[in-house]
């Protein structure tokens, strides 16, 4: 009797299939992340300028020069401050919105669609919109405040006709953080919604049978169960924001003074606009150990939470 075994087929091999499935992601990471990263390291340890590709090794000289630059230290601190403050608000709003959007209510689809728009809109376009909203002279927000007596002579907030959103040090920082929260919250919300949806319904049913009310279920069951996913959302958000320069490039170009200048923008100004590629690369590389340590710590925390 003839054998029923199928002829050999390369895609039956699990290793081959695995490699094929991983290949696009690996190629993407190697070409668009790995290669530029290695190039930045090579630049950071060299004396390279725009147009002069001589990669002669200069040791730690660029890193020492960058660290001795007090503008850099201020920029580094600003980047960390903006990232941490933003994450607090992003996590808070994302949790609230994820809970709302996983409930049943009329118009949920439309509300979700509207809400995701900040994330779906190209960042540069969205920032031009905010640039108009926060314009020092023609801000519609200022106009509304002026019409309602909060601005202008005798106004409750200021006697000026404008608040100077992007020119006042405090308001410029608040504006940048607000816009970052506006931009990043939808992504974190979608991730948390996925987490909430993945909680087995039998656990929630059991809690309900046992008499657990909304807040108890939320704090004692839902949030602990989605903690690993929350950490992932936080990690995504922090890394994206730490390396971002588009928001401040469009809104403030780092001003007033250095109050909104972040690492990505300073690296760009020194390395690309100023032609000093080596120091520009060194500035950007200072973020790497911090982000790496943060990623390892958070992923471990997520892993531990998952095991429990």
């Amino acid at each position, binding site marked *: 009797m003839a054998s029923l075994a199928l002829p050999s087929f390369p895609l039956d091999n699990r290793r081959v299939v695995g490699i094929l499935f991983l290949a696009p992601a690996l190629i993407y990471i190697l070409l668009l992340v790995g290669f530029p990263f290695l190039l930045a390291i090579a630049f950071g340890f060299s004396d390279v300028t725009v147009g*002069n590709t001589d990669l002669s090794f200069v040791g730690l000289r660029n890193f020492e020069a960058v660290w001795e630059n007090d503008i850099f230290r201020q920029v580094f601190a600003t980047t960390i401050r903006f990232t941490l403050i933003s994450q607090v608000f992003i996590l808070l709003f994302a949790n609230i919105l994820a809970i709302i959007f996983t409930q049943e209510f009329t118009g949920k689809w439309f509300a979700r669609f509207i809400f995701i728009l900040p994330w779906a809109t190209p960042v540069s376009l969205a920032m031009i919109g905010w640039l108009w909203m926060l314009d020092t002279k023609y801000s519609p927000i200022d106009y509304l405040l002026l019409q309602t007596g909060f601005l202008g002579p005798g106004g409750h907030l200021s006697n000026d006709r404008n608040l100077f959103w992007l020119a006042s040090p405090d308001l410029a920082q608040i504006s940048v953080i607000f816009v970052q929260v506006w931009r990043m919250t939808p992504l974190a919300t979608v991730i948390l919604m996925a987490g909430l949806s993945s909680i087995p319904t039998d656990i929630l049913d059991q809690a309900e049978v046992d008499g657990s009310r909304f807040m108890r279920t939320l704090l004692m069951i839902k949030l602990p169960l989605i903690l690993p996913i929350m950490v992932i959302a936080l990690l995504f958000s922090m890394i994206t924001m730490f390396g971002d320069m588009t928001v401040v490039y469009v809104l403030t170009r780092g001003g007033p003074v250095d109050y909104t200048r972040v690492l990505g923008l300073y690296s760009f100004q020194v390395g690309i606009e100023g032609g000093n590629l080596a120091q520009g690369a060194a500035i950007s590389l200072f973020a790497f150990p911090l982000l790496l340590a943060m990623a390892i710590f958070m992923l471990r925390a997520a892993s531990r939470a998952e095991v429990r």
Partner: protein
Amino acid sequence: MTSLAKLLILLSLFVPIPAAVIAQGGYPDGTAISLLQWRHFVPRHDEWFDAFAQAWGAANNVAVSIDRVNFAELPAALSAEIESGGGHTIIEMLSSPAAFVTGLHDLGDINRQALADFGSQQDHCYAASYLPAADVYYGFAYGYSLNHGNYDIELWTEVGYPQGPRTYEELLAGGRAIYAASGIPVGIGLSPDIDSEMATRQIIWSFGGSIQDERENVVLNSPATIAAVAYLARLQNEAMTAEVFGWTGASNNQALIAGEVSFIQNPDSAYRSLQAIDEGAAANIGFTAALAGPAGAINGTYLNIAVIPAYVEGAQLAAAKQFILDLTANYRESTFHSELFNLPCFPATVAELPGWLADDPYGSTPADKFAILAADLDDAASLGHPGPTNPAIAQVYAEHIIPNMVARVALGELSAKEAVARAHERVEAIFARWRAQGLVGGG
């Protein structure tokens, strides 16, 4: 603007480029050059430029294409094209390309050719295109714009200065009085932007300070600079609003058109924008010559400089150089169609300029509004004044160290002495780095 003036302007748009001034090069078939330039503040200029470039291309058997971006995007675009080894043939910059010198062709040959053809070049154009430390011309400067004073005649007349301020002390006294009486401030930017960079520099120069000396030694930390910074902080506190900390390239225009500023420093584009909207309001804007400080009166300049990246070769390189020379030969048209925004680095190329300044061809009221600028043309300064605009000066500009230094004092964050000392330290580090590469002199 009178109907006759409008008619003359309209007719001028259709005046063909004189064939005699375009060299008949006859480059090999397939030769093409591409230009990247900033979108001009005076739209009429770009219409003329497109027509000129196409006429030049047709006369020389060269396909010419032009791309335009916001002026602020040009340094990054040039940097990217040099690094990638491909891109546009000619890039026309508004800020200094000195930091990219090693990725650019030495244009010494066409600079020397231009001197032979067109006579002397303005000193500030030379200083912003020639790098003595490396003995190269990193660019070809054919034009510039003067950063002069624009003032509201009615407001300044009310406080006793019908001709506008003539000194920085008068700017403070008059600006303060106007602000107190009407709430209308002076508008001199103290932010990370091109106008703030120029305005703060020219005030520092007029007080006798500068970033470097003629031999490219850093001299920022001086009593003169400290006095200038203290003056600017006082001007901000007493005659300006916080808006100047967020000043952008559009702020001068916006403020002048809105009638919400008593004085700005800007080339004529802000005034021209207002003139196109409201001739009556434009008639109420007067120009001032460079305001005098304790050390004299110096106006800054925005340079119109062309560079050719090192990746351009062969017939394309030759065509690009010829295009630049022919554009210079036709700078009369550029000055005219930019409504006197583009001024010639080679004065002989625009023999009509004194006449145009004395009697504005675009119908200003009064007709001699621009006449006061004539005296400043020969004494203006470029970014590196009194030295050359070198890579270190360009990086100081890119990092916005000078306006930030002033803003720190105006915001009460540091004293003038502390802010200048801190900025000096950073500038020294930048100079040392470029000096080690042999691209900055002094030391």
